């Protein structure tokens, strides 16, 4: 036979077919119907969202065990940040979560400011909040597109949804380009404030973009009544609230599992304390619930962005002058942790500064929400078919740039 199939000795220890997902399942004790088939999903695979590799052990077409491997996109960002001055770190971090770069910048700069004791002006906090909400819309739209592509294939209805989502996301990127000059890696946050102030015509552009997106959003809700979409997502990849908390899942994944937790409301930063963030929670815990939660978040972000863009406050945009000078920012020795709500969950920064080198971080640790999403794979995959595995991975939405850093 041309294809190597891994033969597995059978021992009558574990009752077959009763799937309690066990990430550390000993395959020797698993009693398979036939020989198990080892399938390496990735690293070069259309639906692994970057370069992720999951080794699947298949009993027929049912996954018995999944062993994820990551690190293919490891670029040593944390090591690099130890060598860079505080003002030079932001552009490096843009490449981490490349779907929502604004939030990476914000998370790191908030940690720097906290360590240095810099009070950010209200207008900058306000603008950061607005940008975060706009970025959330763009990020969730991209998720929806790639998720539909996982469900519908690269040459079919899935691509149609993908194209629509990219069309809408494009509007947000245009708005960002108008503000910062960049479509993707903005480098607009710096220590103490923001770099690019709002041009006079910008609110109008934002309003137009938001109006267009909102009017087209109705079309995506039709997917909820689509029988194939519901069949493929309902009851697939269920994560209950306890497991979600155990795994450290955050953001939409946690809320889709029925945990009412959102840092924007529960531990507000920026100007979220002035806003009444409606947290979308769904108890389903499956792919459908994750879809619903993300869609609701897009709508809430549209509402918040509209509100914010209409009421930009006066005042300075930065507490410091952005210079390209290594010695500009000096931190006293200390350690801080700052977590913010990125589109994927809690994006945190653990920052250590030492006495010896006040201009660079001593240790810079990012808490990526996607890492936990990727780590959830061995808990969710077993018991599902290969087709479902792809749908689940799509709904977990790990961004590998962020997982591997």
């Amino acid at each position, binding site marked *: 036979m041309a294809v190597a199939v891994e033969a597995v000795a059978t021992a009558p220890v574990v009752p077959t077919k009763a799937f309690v997902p066990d990430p550390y399942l000993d395959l020797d004790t698993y009693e398979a119907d036939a020989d198990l088939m080892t399938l390496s999903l990735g690293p070069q695979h259309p639906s692994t969202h970057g370069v992720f590799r999951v080794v699947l052990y298949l009993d027929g077409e049912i996954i018995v065990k999944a062993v994820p491997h990551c690190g293919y996109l490891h670029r040593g960002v944390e090591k690099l940040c130890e060598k860079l001055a505080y003002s030079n770190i932001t552009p490096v971090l843009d490449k981490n979560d490349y779907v929502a770069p604004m939030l990476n910048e914000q998370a790191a700069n908030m940690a720097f400011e906290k360590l240095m004791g810099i009070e950010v002006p209200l207008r900058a906090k306000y603008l950061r909040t607005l940008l975060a909400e706009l970025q959330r819309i763009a990020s969730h739209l991209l998720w929806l597109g790639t998720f539909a592509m996982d469900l519908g294939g690269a040459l*079919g209805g*899935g691509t149609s949804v993908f194209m629509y989502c990219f069309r809408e996301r494009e509007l947000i990127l245009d708005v960002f380009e108008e503000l910062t000059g960049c479509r993707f890696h903005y480098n607009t946050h710096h220590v103490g404030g923001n770099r690019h102030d709002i041009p006079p015509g910008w609110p109008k552009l934002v309003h137009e973009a938001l109006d267009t997106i909102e009017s087209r959003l109705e079309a995506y809700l039709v997917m909820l009544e689509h029988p*194939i979409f519901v*069949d493929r997502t309902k009851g697939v990849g269920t994560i209950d609230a306890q497991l979600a908390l155990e795994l450290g899942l955050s953001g939409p994944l946690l809320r889709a599992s029925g945990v009412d937790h959102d840092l924007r409301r529960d531990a507000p930063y920026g100007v979220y304390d002035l806003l009444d963030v409606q947290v979308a929670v769904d108890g389903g815990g499956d792919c459908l619930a994750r879809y619903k939660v993300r869609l609701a978040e897009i709508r809430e972000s549209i509402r918040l962005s509209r509100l914010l863009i209409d009421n930009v406050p006066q005042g300075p945009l930065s507490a410091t002058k952005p210079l390209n000078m290594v010695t500009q920012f000096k931190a006293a020795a200390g350690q801080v942790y700052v977590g913010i709500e990125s589109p994927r969950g809690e994006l945190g920064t653990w920052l250590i500064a030492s006495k010896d080198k006040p201009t660079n971080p001593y240790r810079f640790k990012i808490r990526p929400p996607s890492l936990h999403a990727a780590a959830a794979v061995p808990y969710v995959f077993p018991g599902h078919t*290969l087709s479902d595995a792809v749908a689940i991975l799509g709904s977990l939405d790990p961004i590998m740039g962020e997982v591997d850093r």
Partner: protein
Amino acid sequence: MTFVLSNPWLHGLVFGAVLVSVLMALVAFITWFERKLAGRIQSRLGPTMVGPFGLLQPIADAVKAMQKDFIVPKDADRFLFWLAPPLTIAFALATAAVIPFSKDVLAANLDVGVLYALAFSGLLAFPTWVAGWASNNKYALLGGMRMVAQGISYEIPMVMAALVPVTLAGTLSMQGIVEYQVASGWIIATPVGAAAGLLFLTTALAEGNRIPFDIPEAESELVAGPTTEYNAIGWSIFAASEYAHSVITAAIVSALFLGGWDGWWNLPPLLWMVAKTGFVFLIVTWVRWSLLRFRSDQLMALCWKYLVPGALLLVLIAGIQVSVRG
């Protein structure tokens, strides 16, 4: 000319050659059409650069594919790996022999034309399986296995749906069925015929490996299914045979249910047949670019729980109708 047309062997040879050439040219054009339509569905333009409206794009693609090196994986079964693409296209095109394009334009007027067409259509699962097996790739193997499972399952409701026009017309000949429709109205016009037509189209989508039933290919899961290891001209032949099969299936649907070359306003019958085929293909394409994919177990459930009983019922109703009519 009359000599050629009267000798069945020569007739078949000439018409076969013409048919294959025309069909292959049509397939090239059809890929352009599908890409253009997909572009419009997805709010983009589709091919625009090569030739007027991008019309020459398929030719450019074919030239590119032919220039490429045809790579056979080291551990593949070389003979079967080479054999699979020609087999696929041969089986796909062989079906076209019995399609009546007009009263006279028809390669072979077989008495068992419907059976012949369905048999070759069902055989298509096997070259795909051969490709999946020969590639020595787990994705290809899984895709091949899915193709066989799906092909065999959907064969049953497909044949039963085709039985409805056969029962109503009382003949297995394609030309006979079209002539019956010319005489006593299109089969799609009767309720049982309409239901059978819809069912046949659905199962034909599954047989032709098109979304929402393209489980064997399933790009997001199986990379490219049985054709994962194929590149260059080998892959192109697979793609061409998929399109050829789609077009021919559309033609069979037109012949069995939509009255074939029958039409109004004294337009040439050939034109009617081509227009109907185009219309069915448009529907198939539209479905492809609008729907998501089923999961394989859902696909099987759909077949065995709904389509097979439904098809049985339709055959029963058609039988009663015929016996009442006497």
